[in-house]
């Protein structure tokens, strides 16, 4: 799956990879974050 040009729904997690970190990563791959969330289950 090529990310370039794609719109991305980002479901991050506090205990895993946080949403904002994923957003930076997908932007560097040429994708556009559409929704950025970080779930926290504490």
């Amino acid at each position, binding site marked *: *799956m*090529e*990310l*370039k*040009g*794609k*719109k*991305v*729904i*980002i*479901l*991050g*997690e506090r*205990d*895993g*990879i*946080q*949403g904002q*970190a*994923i957003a*930076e*990563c*997908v932007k*560097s*791959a*040429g*994708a556009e974050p*559409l*929704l950025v969330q*970080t779930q926290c289950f504490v």
Partner: protein
Amino acid sequence: MVEQNGKDNLVVIIGAPDADSAELYAETVTHGDPTWAGPLAGVALELPVFHIMEPEIMAQIDPAIRKEHLSIMEIALDVEKIAQGLNRVRKQKP
């Protein structure tokens, strides 16, 4: 969001810390909420879903950004097990 943007150009990227939760996220955005507890119960969005740590996604990220944001968790997460769970969901027929 799917109704507004369509499915064709949409991808879900998750950052779950373990295989079980990754599989649950994936199941929910492809075949619908398996617990039947949330608004996606019975709603099969069939969106492509990947974990940020899967090799085919990691290969597309700028190495400097990858190092800054993912290098620590790259050591901590069981990426192989997470990928196995996601592959299982991706291969399932609705």
